């Protein structure tokens, strides 16, 4: 264990990379979730289809394959992504496809009457989503987003295979330098567990914050 402790600075840098990768991909995934989730509800068939193609592509293939494709194949076409960016894009796009289903599901579960009330008040489609539907849907999305965030954290471990110096990769370096196996793996398992537990705590905190003062379960009539 001492040898591993000696390499604590590497582990620390890996932890930072992993967290950065997770958060950056999460931001990307969030944007994609909303864009694709809303596109699924578009009145235009073509837009809906594009969204479905996106969804099925990223949900239907392995994240690792996507990662390798972005890292090794895209450059052959002149699309050059630095590894960390390829990692962020692959993780973000992959999780974004799952997130878009969460967004769509939550939006669809907002009562139809809320749509109608907004139309009756002459809101534009944009206003309807921006001010009425999305604010009501967000509290419903949060628990699923929390789970997806953990999936994302775990997914970032895969980026070690395209040489991103994340936690998992650092553990491989430590193994090469020290020829230890149990200790580095145990150490990063614990670190991953701690990170995800902190992330879950953070999401729970946000859930509590957003549900404060308002009750999203609409009590309508008797």
């Amino acid at each position, binding site marked *: 264990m001492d040898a591993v402790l000696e390499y604590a600075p*590497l582990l620390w840098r890996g932890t930072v990379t992993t967290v950065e990768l997770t958060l950056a991909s999460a931001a990307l995934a969030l944007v994609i979730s909303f864009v694709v989730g809303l596109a699924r509800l578009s009145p235009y068939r073509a837009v809906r289809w594009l969204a479905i193609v996106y969804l099925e592509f990223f949900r239907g293939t392995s994240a690792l394959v996507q990662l390798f494709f972005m890292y090794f194949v895209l450059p052959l076409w002149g699309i050059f992504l630095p590894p960390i960016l390829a990692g962020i894009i692959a993780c973000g796009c992959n999780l974004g496809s799952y997130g878009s289903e969460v967004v769509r599901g939550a939006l669809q579960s907002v009562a139809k009457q809320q749509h109608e009330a907004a139309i009756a008040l002459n809101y534009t489609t944009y206003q309807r989503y921006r001010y009425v539907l999305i604010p009501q849907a967000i509290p419903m999305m949060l628990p699923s987003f929390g789970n997806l965030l953990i999936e994302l954290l775990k997914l970032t471990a895969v980026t070690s295979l395209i040489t991103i110096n994340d936690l998992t990769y650092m553990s491989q370096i430590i193994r090469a330098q020290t020829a230890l196996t149990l200790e580095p793996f145990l150490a990063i398992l614990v670190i991953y567990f701690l990170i995800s537990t902190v992330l879950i705590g953070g999401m729970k905190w946000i859930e509590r914050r957003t549900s404060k003062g308002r009750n999203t379960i609409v009590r309508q009539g008797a």
Partner: protein
Amino acid sequence: GAGTLDEIRERGYAIVAVANEPPYSDIKPDGFVTGAAPDVARAVMKKLGVPELRSQLVPYGSMIPALQARRVDMATSGLYIKPKRCESIIYSEPDLCGAEAFAVAAGNPHNLKTYEDIAANPELFMTTCAGCAEEAYALERGVKPEQIKVFTDPPSGIKMLQQGRVQVFALSGLGTQDLLKKTNDPNLELVMPVKGVPMGCAGAAFNSADDDFRDMYDKALKELKESGEFASIVAPYGFSAEATLAVKRDDFCPGN
């Protein structure tokens, strides 16, 4: 093209692909990369007016695509000069040479001295890294693809050997030696050199379009070798400077 070195000079640092394999490369706990190959490269680049190397860890199997995709300016750290590779990339003059080695169970129960010995016994399994020279040596000498289990990193390979999943671990001599020393397992034994394969010589590798850069590098490397500084860099890592000085790139890849 020709401008690569100028770009690097302007930038102030070069991005170098480094493998995770002591003693070719050696990563300090603070993340600083040394080891024989990066140290040579660092000295050469200093001569070329580039004060800093930034290293990126890349497995052997991924170094060539990384060069082709220009993810790195050059690759160092023990990428052997091989004709097949020379089709895709270009090399500097050799910078590190060493014999090949096997790691086997103590007492070498299957009496493995050459790749042919492995090929002769299809029951046996060997492990080496993906896309490594050793894999090519093995296949060229009749080892069946099913006999080769590719490891993700050398310590995993040693683990497989210790656990009996494979009977032989093949890698560069010094790499294997270093690993066995760290593992410190009395049940393992080093076979070095492996007969019937040439001494492996590595060079710094470049994108095929960067021949100007490569030529400048060669010139600086030559100066380094002649000044004796080269020997003083590689010797502490266990490499023999004479062995390296005795060979030329054209011995492996004529016209590369």
